């Protein structure tokens, strides 16, 4: 059987928030776990993220939010993805996100939410288990 391709991940900061310690750490941790990671850097618009998802053909989009704009950001990113017809991408978020907002984010389409001090192992496991292409791979 052909070896399964490496999981491709886009990590992005959307909006104006400049806290990027977490986004960089998660990017490095996923890279260390053998995934291909594209880190977009700061100040991306939802459209830029959707465009990059399409161009890079990633399986996972990770959005980092530490300035309180997580719900609005999640909504705008999922809308931008929908507009471009991207449906089979796993959306995860990290940063400063109160638990009470988890359900709203889930409903918008964010599958995994990881707060400060979430373990890298948990994030990696979550991606491996939930990445869209894994569903078709027999185990």
């Amino acid at each position, binding site marked *: 059987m052909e070896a399964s391709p490496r999981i491709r991940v886009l990590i992005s*900061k959307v*909006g*104006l*928030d*400049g*806290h*990027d*310690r977490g986004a*960089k*750490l998660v*990017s*490095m*941790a996923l890279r260390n776990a053998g995934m291909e990671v594209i*880190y977009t*850097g*700061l*100040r991306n*618009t939802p459209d830029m993220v959707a465009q990059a998802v399409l161009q890079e053909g990633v399986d996972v989009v990770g959005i980092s939010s530490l*300035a*309180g*704009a997580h719900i*609005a*950001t999640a909504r*705008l990113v999922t809308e931008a993805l929908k507009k471009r017809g991207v449906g089979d991408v796993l959306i995860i978020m990290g940063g*400063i996100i*109160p*638990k009470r907002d988890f359900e709203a984010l889930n409903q918008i389409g964010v599958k995994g939410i990881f*707060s*400060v*001090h979430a*373990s*890298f*192992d948990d994030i990696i496991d979550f991606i491996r288990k939930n990445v869209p292409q894994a569903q078709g791979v027999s185990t």
Partner: protein
Amino acid sequence: MSTPEKKAGLAPDEDQTHTQETVLDSGIRIKKLYTPQDIAHLSYEKDIGDPGKFPYVRGIYPEMYWKKPWTRRLYAGYGNATETNRRFKFLLENGQSGLSAALDLPTQIGLDSDDPLAAADVGRVGVAIDTLKDMEEIFAGIDLGKVSTSFTINATAAILLAMYVAVGEKQGVPSKNLRGTVQNDILKEYIARGQYVFPPKPSTRIVGDIIEYCIHNIPRFNSISVAGSHMHENGATSVQQVAYTFCDALAYIDEVVRRGYHIDQFAQNISFLFCSRQNMFEDICTYRAARKRWAHLMKDRLQAKDPKSYTLKFAAGGGGLWMTKRQPLNNIGRAMIVALASALGGAQSVLLAAYDEPFAIPTEDSARISLNLQNILVHEAGITDTIDPLAGSYFVESLTDEIDRKIVETMEWVEKNGGILSLIEKGDIQRQLARQAMAEEMRVQKGESVLVGVNRFVAEGEKGEEDMVFHEPDPMTRQHQVERLAKVKKERDPRKVESALDGLKKAAVEGTNLMPPLIQAVKTYATLAEMVKVFKDVWGTYSAPSGI
């Protein structure tokens, strides 16, 4: 008792005993015991000195907190100008001695509230300022001649300062009586904070323009607060926090000295911002060493003659990165350690994160706790009864000396490798910090560094954030702000705005000081983004390497 969740070979509630000496991130080894031998090489007169005397290890003033305790600040600034004004009045009535204004992100990078890019961020982490109207409202009923206001503003600092000057004028307070601080430290934005707009070179020129304008017109204002705290939270060691910050400061000083000024004309307007992380004695000694190194840099390298130029004034505090989501009330204890480190390190002002930092911006209640932790130190704990109580400790003086040597070493490394600007442009500093932050995080995740409530001392069924009350942003903030802006735009005289913006462009192109045309422009109610656009047209924008 054994448990399957064993970390670092210890049960969750077992104490970790030392099997070997602790090594700080900067490579300094903490000995098991310090004795007179460890400080035998130090001369009290030459290496430590009385408080208020060179090299200022014991503090920059002869009487320090004995005469006047540090200024207790709180980061505050919410949604709109009216709300912030109410908050400021509340803080002044509750014993706070200085105001600290947090600005929202669009304001920090020069976007108006009606810009689609700003949609999710208006009024979110601070107050939105689009025009002079907002600044007038924030300080309505607050005498600018009597308060000191600290603005966390960098890329757009010149514009915000111009507005503050204009509000002062309207209140009848001359510029020479205005007190406060603008952060105005753009280089660390490229390294760690991300709120920059223009390329490094014109940005450094704006920094210079602000310092130069303050020399002549606002002599009591701290025209720059060079900040190490953001780098420290992004992975810089304590030593790097100070060394890189001093390198940034020297770059700004060069910019002003190049224009024909002597260091003694503006050294007193330079202040610093550092933050504490976890290790209390490392922080205390870092602050003591920083004072000594700065005094030497000013005297030996920059040939300052006025002893006041030798003194390093700094704000300290922070603690946000140390705070945990698990067992959040523990964060109050962490904040107290940060306050104590800042006070024993001789800070001029202290700004503590609130215990709900990992969840949201502070509520009025959590903010009051962080303020009162400091009031407990000043009024209850006897911290201010004697000046620099730790002086002479074998450990403290020895560690202060070692940290000072490491700061010198690190600054030499920067200079040998092309200087701070070049290292930032190449992304080298960012890369170094990211690697160190990763190593730190791995130590926590592997349980090698203990975080109480996170990887040790975790109790089943403990109370989490479910019962906590968070600051709830007003969902109407942006709409109100956009309406407010539209009203200002409608009521102003567009010809005056246009002519003021033309004047601003001329100054930007010709290289004359930007402050006078900015003050003109803000008075016509030109918007922040209109003024920033003038600069973008002349200089373009920039994207700094992330380092990963």
